[in-house]
């Protein structure tokens, strides 16, 4: 399981982020990108010593300032569901393309009998 795909699945969940400077943020994950930059909503920022708290309605964190992120365990279940759904979609798609395609020669199919892919580009022949 890739760390970033787990984080992606945690979208909408409450998470805890600790930054390299020791501050922590308890917030709801709104969105994230490949660099672990994140936008959060409804955050509570805790100071380094744990004595001060601020409420921050919306914020953006640059990924490289993060030390670690804690996510609820139920996100692992979400990851599994998403994986199963993706496999199902892939199976459906391959069934559709292999079964019941009795077209005349040519008919939009290439010589492999499948969809056009990179190998059919002139450069690859």
């Amino acid at each position, binding site marked *: *399981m890739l*760390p970033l795909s787990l984080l992606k699945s945690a979208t909408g969940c409450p998470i805890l982020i600790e930054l390299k400077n020791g501050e922590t943020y308890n917030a709801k994950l709104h969105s994230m990108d490949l660099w672990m930059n994140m936008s959060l909503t409804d955050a509570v920022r805790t100071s380094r010593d744990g004595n001060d708290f601020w409420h921050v309605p919306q914020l953006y964190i640059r990924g490289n300032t993060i*030390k670690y992120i804690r996510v609820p365990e139920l996100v692992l279940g979400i990851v599994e569901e998403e994986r199963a759904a993706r496999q199902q979609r892939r199976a459906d798609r391959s069934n559709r393309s292999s079964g019941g395609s009795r077209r005349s020669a040519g008919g939009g199919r290439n010589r492999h009998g499948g969809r056009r892919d990179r190998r059919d580009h002139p450069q690859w022949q």
Partner: protein
Amino acid sequence: MSAKPKGKSDQSGRPGGRKSMLLDFVNKRVGVITNDGRMLVGNMLGYDQVCNIVLDKCVERVFEPNQPMQTISSDSLNTFIIRGDDIAVIGEIDSEKDDKESWTGKTGHPIKPVVH
């Protein structure tokens, strides 16, 4: 001749690449020492190219010279994504031995943070 990589394909599934050394740790119990000197123990579920890792059922072990070791864990937020930048050491833990070891009452010195 085609310029195929020489390495045999292995369990890594990556074309021609040597398998990543972290693959050995996946789904095992590991200890992680972070740059700030903390010790985290958890089941490693995954990792990526930049050594970000996922630890499930993660607890922190806190060592102090004159009081017994404490484990800090949380019921709700116990899956960690640790950023690769912050990792100093990852090591496999023999769960059987670790379970037998009675950690209660053990003391130790804290690990100093990494200085850059």
